[in-house]
């Protein structure tokens, strides 16, 4: 049962344009969401997060939007750069004793075309 889904396995975007990566979740109890980025032969690294009490969080070129009613979040990268080419994982968290773990999505491979 995939509670966090990234329906696009891959995405190609021209350098300088906007990259939009999408993530859907099914568990309405999730209250914190994160994006991780992974280069080949390296472990994932944290990128940006958002709490369910917000609908937007911005950090430089990266913005995450959360639509709780649609159970959907998206990561916007503007402008896209070649170094952004990587696999992006969204992850969701539900707080509370005994539930302290992240649930990751399946990942989207982003390729920035120079």
């Amino acid at each position, binding site marked *: 049962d995939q509670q*966090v889904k*990234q329906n696009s*396995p891959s995405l190609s975007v021209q350098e300088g344009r906007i990259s939009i990566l999408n993530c859907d979740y099914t568990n309405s109890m999730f209250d*914190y969401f*994160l994006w*991780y980025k992974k280069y080949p*032969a*390296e*472990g*994932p*690294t*944290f990128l940006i*997060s958002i709490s369910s009490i917000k609908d937007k969080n911005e950090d430089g070129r990266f913005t995450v939007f959360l639509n709780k009613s649609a159970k959907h979040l998206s990561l916007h990268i503007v402008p896209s750069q070649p170094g952004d080419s990587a696999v992006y*994982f969204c*992850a969701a*968290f539900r*707080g509370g004793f005994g539930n*302290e*773990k*992240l*649930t*990751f*999505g*399946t*990942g989207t491979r982003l390729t920035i075309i120079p």
Partner: protein
Amino acid sequence: DVKVTQSSRYLVKRTGEKVFLECVQDMDHENMFWYRQDPGLGLRLIYFSYDVKMKEKGDIPEGYSVSREKKERFSLILESASTNQTSMYLCASSLGGSAADTQYFGPGTRLTVL
């Protein structure tokens, strides 16, 4: 900088062998995690630990066990390796308090079971 190291980058084992994957973190983190990454399935949590000698099952613990005798070290054990355990194994650690804390990942161990 947080450093999470894994004992091997690549490992080839035979079916039925006992396999040890070691993970060490140098930032005095309370939490440690073992994931496996498979194409189309994303990162799936195998086991995690919030304290020395403490362990909790993740989403796919079958066929695995773990050991945390010291705070900085978290070992994943495949008691009798099988071909369906061929995968990329990722260790992570986080400061503590919440699994939503930023997780720092090691570079991964690509295990092939023949």
